[in-house]
């Protein structure tokens, strides 16, 4: 299997914690930030592998809260240790509040060619409810600045399932006009140990019901398609040619290096990940958890991830691991029911059945 290798760098810093967030992130002192970046550099240096890198993703947290000089240095560090493909997709995650022209220009100069902005919503009420610090106008301004600086590949994140939204059509059209090329629209998952979970539990916040969320999701699907944002993965939509290469690599079970606290790597069939405690990571970034995947687990991941994409999972990849779709009774049944389909190369879930991907996978594994 030919896979392209990607790099993920985790920047766990944020101005504040959003109410729904259970990521490793937070507001830390400058001293810790500096130490963290230094550790990150040390960790990157340990990898002597000279394979070509096709995508870099600087995520978080909020990488844009850092001084842009640190981001520039980070990319330099990566370039000095890896062979970066000329057409590599290099993404940085930003939030509207921390972006400015100076940072954006620096990113551009450093070779970053994709900006991902966590705007989450264009409704100030929603933004407040979920603990975001920015408002609608700030979000718009951020997109405009990125566009001004010359970024032609801009993603925005949208959260679905919070409160009713009567302006979905207007929102999507507006985002498109601003120059947004990619939209990650995902359903809010109420995770335990988040502020929002507590608020819902004690009744101070009321979210949409499951059925209402589905309805809203379906309206987004319809609207996004109407404006040319094609769904290529369960939660990802883009204009033609603007798919996120880095993420596709995950869904195709490609290889990747992950650097930073809690970052996961998958190299040569082994998944390993760093501690999710910043201080522990700084103290000893080599303290990693390793997990060698069995063929059975590889098959599970191929299906679990590959079927997230509308194009589906490669049949040859499954075959190589000994999984033959036509020998699976459940698969045959679902094929006959049109829940899944195959073409010459791939097995995929039919469009309207994405909502039950999990059930379909459970039947397949």
């Amino acid at each position, binding site marked *: 299997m030919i896979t392209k290798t990607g790099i993920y760098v985790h920047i766990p810093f944020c101005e504040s914690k959003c109410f729904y967030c259970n990521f490793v992130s937070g507001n830390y002192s400058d001293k810790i930030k500096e130490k963290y970046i230094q550790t990150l550099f040390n960790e990157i240096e340990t990898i002597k592998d000279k394979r070509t890198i096709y995508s870099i993703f600087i995520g978080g947290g909020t990488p844009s809260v850092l001084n842009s000089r640190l981001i520039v240095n980070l990319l330099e560090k990566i370039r000095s240790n890896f062979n970066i493909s000329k057409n590599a997709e290099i993404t940085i995650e930003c939030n509207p509040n921390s972006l400015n022209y100076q940072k954006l220009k620096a990113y551009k100069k450093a070779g970053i060619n994709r900006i991902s902005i966590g705007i989450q919503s264009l409704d100030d009420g929603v933004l407040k409810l979920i603990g975001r610090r920015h408002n609608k106008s700030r979000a718009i301004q951020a997109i405009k600045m990125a566009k001004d600086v010359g970024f032609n590949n801009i993603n925005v994140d949208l959260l679905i399932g919070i409160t009713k939204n009567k302006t979905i059509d207007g929102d999507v059209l507006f985002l498109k006009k601003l120059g947004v090329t990619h939209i990650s629209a995902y359903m809010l998952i109420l995770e335990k140990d988040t502020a929002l979970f507590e608020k819902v539990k004690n009744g101070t916040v009321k979210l949409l019901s499951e059925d209402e969320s589905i309805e809203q999701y379906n309206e987004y699907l319809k609207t996004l398609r109407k404006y040319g944002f094609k769904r290529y993965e369960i*939660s990802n939509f883009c204009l033609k040619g603007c798919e996120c290469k880095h993420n596709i690599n995950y869904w195709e079970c490609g290889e990747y290096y992950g650097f930073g606290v809690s970052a996961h790597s998958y190299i040569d069939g082994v998944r390993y990940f760093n501690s999710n405690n910043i201080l522990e990571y700084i103290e000893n970034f080599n303290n990693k958890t390793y*997990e060698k995947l069995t063929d059975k687990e590889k098959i599970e991941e191929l299906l679990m991830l590959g079927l997230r994409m509308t194009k589906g999972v490669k049949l040859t990849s499954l075959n190589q691991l000994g999984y033959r779709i036509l020998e699976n009774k459940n698969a045959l049944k679902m094929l006959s029911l049109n829940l899944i389909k195959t073409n010459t190369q791939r097995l995929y879930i039919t469009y309207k059945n994405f909502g039950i991907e999990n059930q*379909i996978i459970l039947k397949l594994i």
Partner: protein
Amino acid sequence: MFNLCIISSMDRQERIRNFCIIAHIDHGKSTLADRLIEKTGTVSKREMSDQLLDSMDIEKERGITIKLTPTRMFYNYKGEEYILNLIDTPGHVDFTYEVSRSLVACEGALLIVDASQGVEAQTLANTYLALDNNLEILPVINKIDLPSARPEEVKKEIEDVIGLPADDAPLISAKEGINIDQVLMQIIEKIPHPKGSEQKPLKALIFDSFYDNFKGAISLVRIFDGEVKVGTKIKMMETGKTYEVTEVGVFTPSMKPVEVLQAGDVGYIAGSIKNVADTKVGDTITLAENGAKEPLPGYKSVQPVVFCGIFLADGSKFNDLKDALEKLKLNDASLVFSPEVSKALGYGFRCGFLGLLHMEIITERLEREFNLEIITTAPGVNYNVYKTNGDMVEVTNPANLPKPEEIERFEEPICKLHIYTPPEYVGSIMELCKEKRGEFIDMQYLDKMRVKMDYKMPLNEMIYDFFDALKSRTRGYASLDYEIAGYEPSDLIKLDILLNGEICDALSLIVHRDFAYQKGRSIVEKLKNVIPRQMFTIPIQASIGNKIIARETISALRKDVLAKCYGGDITRKRKLLEKQKEGKKRMRQIGSVELPSEAFMSILKIDYDN
């Protein structure tokens, strides 16, 4: 023990007292037994674990005694040494016959009554059993240490309700060890000693039996006449089988071999007997040659009255289930089972039990002691089905019913209920009995506090959740006893449950025609709540023949996984997936529908309170 005669001129049998304890659940039978054992020094304090006689875990947890463990105790009273044999008895209606055999083995009984709760149905039923067997009954009022104790009123209740003088009943607290001496004194002074003949041929009553891995089936016996020792050739009078005795002994309460068991003694007999089914409770053991002509009276072959299918949640371990049932059967002759195949649940067994409690105990032991995850189908009874061609078939599994057009009529087992309740609940009990097809027979005010209600009711209605419903509607005050009272004609029909249009055989029930709609309705509602949403819309229907009488729909799953999934989420997601897959294994696939194990249980208990 056999050199006691040297000390004084008293006859050996005059020193023996055989007695049992009658008590309602929770009234303190096991605790008093423990105190007696402690007081007589039979077991040192160090060895005492609470409720010594209840040996199975389940018994300890539920505080009920199912299996009886007899105990021999020594006690010195007025300069003479006595042997007290305590035969513990089960405290549940399912085991009435076992209780009656234990009573026969005794000359007297302690009747424990809770000082605050008074006389309860179960106590009363067993007391009557004891009176029928001419036992000397000694009332004992327990839990006098509780603030709510009302011993004088309870004494009066014993006199009024049971008709026993209770004036000098010991007022005790088994828990606190208060007045235990008085109990021992009364046992010796009031309970008659055995009066058997050592010269006559052996007559020993089997009042219990169990299987020992080394010694084979062990009979717990009361010797009425004659004697038995190692080498004696014995005969079981019911089965006619003969054995050579390999060991005789007594319970201390652990097994202790002795040289001989003689008239009046309580102990055990082992004889390399392979199967507990050959040591039938109630049977008489005599000598193989020149034995007794007549057995002791009262033997009854025990018939299971409640039946259900037992299947494995994970269908693959059929042989494990078979082994487990066989092992349980070793110690429980009343458990019967035969293989059964269900379209929905695969291979399993149809099992017969003495009652619902017995069924619960067996299923719980299968899960706990044998680590099996089992699915039980709704419990049912044995129906007599008369066919149009004149044949009669006995049906315990609704799936085995003849076709409707071949059925001429049904007969179902009926039981007689005796309910004891404070008067204020009479109304709601009548209502409950009516819902359960009960037929009123009689009602008696025993005193101001207590009413006795007699009903006739189909056993099938009684076994579902009658006891729970009775308890909940009377806030726990009513108590219940029942006996099987033959078969009666009944207008019954088969109620099928369809999932996605297919009949699920494991969910079929035999119900009375008048209640079919109500039952069908509540079952589909229950199922709607326990079956998770799946890929498709699932209709759940109840039908009689081809007629659909109730319907619910489970709408299809829609939001399942619309969240994001990137590099850092993969391991966690895969593990979650594997866990879900594991959960799926425990689901039964019925056609295209996945049914969780709880679905089969949920229909057992239909809520009539709403």
